[in-house]
């Protein structure tokens, strides 16, 4: 069963609704002891990465998250928390995946920010998280900061002025920049795939 890390960073109604629609069981993690009750974890997150990190620290969740051996999926800001650093609030993050979270350079690239809408996602390597999802499927993104592309950890990429990480993986830690709970059938497939990861 999935444990949703409940640390007060954004609304999780849409996520739990998506899991309900798929018949996927989940519970809420409110204390460190709750981590024991689950065999996989989702770290949601909307809003400011620096603030989200602070909330995660106040909850005392950082050490246990760093020590998890079971599958972990960070979504949006929850994914960014897995990296080392974010330009949003110049925040030091968990460093679980040694990458940086950067701001879209609007002046240079003439981009509209937030990057808000459906973007194609290109699969970089074969991975169980994207099982039965075709490369170049569309997913729904809402973000102003992105994780750099790094062939060592990027398992799927997106292109918005520059190529960045749509999904990352290191060992049992996964992160997706898009919102699977808002990404139609492809997103639901990804959530389903997560429940089968070993």
């Amino acid at each position: 069963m999935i444990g949703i890390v409940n640390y007060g960073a954004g609304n999780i109604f849409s996520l739990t609704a998506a899991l309900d629609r798929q018949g996927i069981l989940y519970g809420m993690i409110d204390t460190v002891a709750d981590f024991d009750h689950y065999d996989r974890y989702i770290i949601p997150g909307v809003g400011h990465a620096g603030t989200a990190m602070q909330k995660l620290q106040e909850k005392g969740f950082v050490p246990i998250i760093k020590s998890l051996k079971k599958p972990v999926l960070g979504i949006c800001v929850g994914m960014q928390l897995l990296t080392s650093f974010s330009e949003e609030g110049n925040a030091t993050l968990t460093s679980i995946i040694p990458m940086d979270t950067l701001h879209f350079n609007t002046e240079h690239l003439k981009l509209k920010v937030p990057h808000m809408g459906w973007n194609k996602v290109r699969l970089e390597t074969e991975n169980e998280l994207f099982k039965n999802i075709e490369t170049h499927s569309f997913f729904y993104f809402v973000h102003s900061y992105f994780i750099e592309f790094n062939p060592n950890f990027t398992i799927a990429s997106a292109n918005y002025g520059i190529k960045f990480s749509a999904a990352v993986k290191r060992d049992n830690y996964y992160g997706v920049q898009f919102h699977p709970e808002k990404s139609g059938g492809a997103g639901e497939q990804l959530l389903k795939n997560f429940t089968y990861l070993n």
Partner: protein
Amino acid sequence: MNSIKNTFSSVPLEVEERNTFAKRIIPCLDVKDGRTVKGVNFVNLRDAGDPVELAWQYSQQGADELIFLDITATHERRKTMIELVKSVARQINIPFTIGGGINELTDADALLNAGADKISINSAAVRNPAFINQLAEAFGKQFVVVAVDTKNNSEKNIVFLNGGRIATGLETEQWIKEAEDRGAGEILLTSMDHDGTQNGFDCDLLKEINDNLSIPLIASGGAGAIQHFIDVFQQSNVDAALAASVFHYGEIRIPLLKEELKRNKVEVRL
């Protein structure tokens, strides 16, 4: 055993990488007392007045996003809105915006917690522009859509309220710039001169606004044919196009619309 259908090696890289961000098609649903008000012409709809079932139909047809405009005028409005948002969030797997009568941070907070992806504010922002800042600070700019109704008035584009009945002293371009500076995450611009005419979007104005905007712009008002959507994306490069009656009455079917857009080199999600 299933394997990932990874076909990119056979596709020329250049073509694939150029256009990967889709233009959005957004049906707009007017809701009163929890029921859709405009006539709906879907053959297989059990209850044409049920916004949730209608929303589900649209999501199945390939709509990229939905906007619900609540025009309820009673004291019960807030309760019915929250219930509506919850039902939509429970059943629909695409993003949606809710607008109508949002005047306070507590309204927005309740809608966020009920599962709304964005809220749209119009007259509340004109009356109290600082409300945009407050919403952006509290919930992030991605949550805040500022809807602007514009009308040409003696050679100037002026912001109107109450469906075009009340003129403000604000010039449209300046107001949109101010809304962006205050923290709007997206602009929904409706041309009252084009709205209801089915003669096409106001592409000139939309282009002018879009060229000077660094947040997404949704075009609204005037959609009557598939060609109008092709025109608005090709001529003004807006991020999304909204329509109501042409979708509700089945005059334009979203799957066909998207096929035609793609044929005309407008990137869409199929």
